[in-house]
């Protein structure tokens, strides 16, 4: 039991906080409290997603939880001396996290609990609204649950933006002896970390969402496909699965309802292409992660040839709140055909990097300049890559684009998994175009020629441009090659690699056309 006189101190165990010293801070807090003879209880949480303030420590005081950050182990003695246990002033004091503009401006539905609760406490999860969604889904039944998800307007958060409810209905209507729910947690895009934050900070939310999906479509088995690059997330998720099984939240007869759902975690082995749903299914079956031709759709012939829901982690983790608060509640957020909220991830060279969940509709400029505060280097923003390594580079002249699936598509850009990577004016866009091709060559599964060969030839063409050889002719060749890849590739890896390349050429031609002297000066400012 927690001592009533003991002050609770919340320290993230999110890997991004660990990477900047959270464990050292936790040890220092423990040691200093012991030295002072003060009773404290350290609770390890996920991250609130204000990464520039990590490690962000929160102290439970009569004023509520008061945050301090970024705290280093060396600051701990001074924080105790200043009286942080009562929320006292200190240069590192952030105040109530909810009042911080970065959080106050957000609408946290999917991430309502992340960074607040102990991720491995079922009691915390239930106290914060957990398992109300499943209870309502059990009461409503499968058909009504699919109907609710359709009505909520939720679209696939992995990148393609396909309506989740329609996918579920296809699987529900399919007849088979076994169906599966597969969670795509192969979050390989640079600039994204939302899946990881849920795995580390609110794993029961995903378990509940997948259980509801199982109930809705009649699937009794599920798999979470995560990445080997996320060892900490996988450890937390494994522990959460064990706890859920022991608590009767997974297995046969969940919550005494007769519902059966078994869930396992599988880990990839460093192949980006396995984030593509059919390659992911091959990998889950223990094979090389080679893309399958579609049709047949995975909804009809998926894992082991059975009807399978393959959803992104963020889609599945949003299901509990939709079932709990209602489809209409969720659909009331957003704009156009982009309903609800999107967990946007601000990363790279940005002053206030982190997780920003908001209704669709803010402009790109508001997100990058107002929320993100511009670059961390304090130089002008030159480009923002939206939607991972296969996403377009957007210049500040397109900052009026609303954050919406259709508005981005109209500008040849992608929302993807919600990542935004900010670059300052020292970036060389021809180099970034080459990197996109090189990455595609490295990660291509090899099944289709445009992607396998095109990416390697593409990198060579950019090299010739970089060397200043026949620049105009080589740019034309590169554009032609990009078209072939875009329309001839089997999946998004080869098909979308042209986005970063073509957008770099279109919006930053000066980086391609003026390559003759190696000592080329950096551009003076953003356009």
């Amino acid at each position, binding site marked *: 039991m927690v001592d009533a006189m003991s002050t609770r101190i919340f320290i993230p165990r999110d*890997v*991004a906080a*660990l*990477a*900047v010293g959270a464990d050292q801070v936790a040890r220092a807090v423990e040691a200093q409290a012991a030295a002072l003879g003060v009773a404290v209880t350290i609770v390890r949480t996920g991250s609130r997603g204000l*990464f*520039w303030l*990590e490690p962000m420590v929160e102290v439970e005081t009569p004023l509520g939880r008061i945050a301090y950050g970024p705290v280093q182990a060396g600051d701990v003695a001074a924080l105790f001396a200043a009286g942080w246990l009562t929320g006292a002033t200190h240069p590192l004091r952030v105040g109530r996290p909810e009042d911080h503009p970065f959080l106050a401006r957000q609408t946290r539905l999917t991430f309502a609990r992340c960074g607040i609760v102990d991720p491995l406490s079922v009691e915390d999860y239930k106290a914060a609204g957990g398992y109300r969604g499943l209870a309502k889904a059990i009461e409503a039944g499968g058909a009504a649950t699919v109907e609710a998800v359709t009505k909520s307007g939720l679209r696939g958060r992995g990148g393609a933006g396909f309506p989740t409810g329609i996918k579920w209905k296809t699987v529900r209507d399919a007849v088979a002896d076994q169906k599966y729910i597969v969670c795509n947690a192969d*979050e*390989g*895009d*640079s*600039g*994204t*970390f939302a*899946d*990881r934050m849920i795995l580390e900070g609110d794993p029961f939310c995903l378990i509940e969402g997948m259980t509801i999906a199982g109930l809705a479509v009649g699937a009794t088995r599920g798999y979470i496909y995560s990445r*080997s*690059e*996320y*060892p*900490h*997330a996988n450890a937390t998720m494994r522990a959460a699965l064990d706890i859920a099984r022991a608590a009767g939240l997974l297995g046969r007869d969940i919550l005494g309802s007769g519902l059966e759902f078994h869930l396992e975690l*599988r*880990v*990839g*082995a*460093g*192949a*980006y292409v396995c984030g593509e749903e059919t390659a992911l299914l091959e*990998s889950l079956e*223990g*094979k*090389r*992660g*080679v893309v399958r031709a579609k049709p047949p759709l995975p909804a009809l012939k998926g894992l082991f040839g059975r009807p399978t829901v393959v959803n992104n982690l963020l889609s599945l983790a949003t299901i509990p709140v939709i079932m709990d608060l209602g489809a209409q509640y969720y659909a009331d957020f957003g704009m156009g055909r982009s309903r609800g909220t999107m967990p946007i*991830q*601000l*990363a*790279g*060279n*940005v002053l206030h*990097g*982190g997780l920003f969940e908001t209704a669709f509709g803010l402009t790109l400029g508001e997100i990058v300049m107002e929320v993100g505060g511009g670059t*961390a280097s304090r130089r002008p923003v030159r480009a923002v*890559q939206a939607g991972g*390594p296969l996403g377009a580079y957007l210049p500040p002249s397109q900052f009026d684009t609303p954050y919406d699936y259709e508005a981005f598509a109209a500008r040849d850009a992608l929302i993807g998994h919600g*990542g935004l*990577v*900010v*670059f*300052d004016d020292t*970036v060389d866009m021809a180099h*970034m175009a080459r*990197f996109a091709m090189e*990455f595609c060559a490295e*990660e291509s*599964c090899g099944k289709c020629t445009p992607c396998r060969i095109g990416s390697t030839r593409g990198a060579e063409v950019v090299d010739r441009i970089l060397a200043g050889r026949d620049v105009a002719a080589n740019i034309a060749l590169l554009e032609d090659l990009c078209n072939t890849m875009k329309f001839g590739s089997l999946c998004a890896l080869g098909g979308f690699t042209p986005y970063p390349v073509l957008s770099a050429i279109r919006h930053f031609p000066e980086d391609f056309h003026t390559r003759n002297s190696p000592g080329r000066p950096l551009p003076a400012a953003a356009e």
Partner: protein
Amino acid sequence: MPILHALQETFGHVPQDAIPLLAEALNLSRADVHGIVSFYHDFKEAPGGRHVVKLCRAEACQSMGGHALAEGLLHRLGLDWGGTTGDGQVTIEPVYCLGLCACAPAALIDGRPLGRLNRERLDAAVNEARNDWSTP
């Protein structure tokens, strides 16, 4: 895949001798098993150094100078990507995104995450690994 992960974790690579055993046990051909091992970046056919430094090469880390940081370290150690120092102590591997993109540039050294790296912090961490911290 879970079997291959276990082998990789235990031996630091997937030994050639294991392939016929796996093929036999799983009723696959040796070529099938070899195909799977060679497809995934994580499964190595030969052992690496005692300490593995995974440096992120992806865009978010590049935006914060990750490219120069990585090239600098490789240059100082006289290595290419995937190379191991002559004393067999340190292998430098590329990784594409550790999900630490808001704390870039980032690395994972023997499973220990590091963010907001600069040359001094990275060198210190690599040296510390070399001088043997207890591998987690």
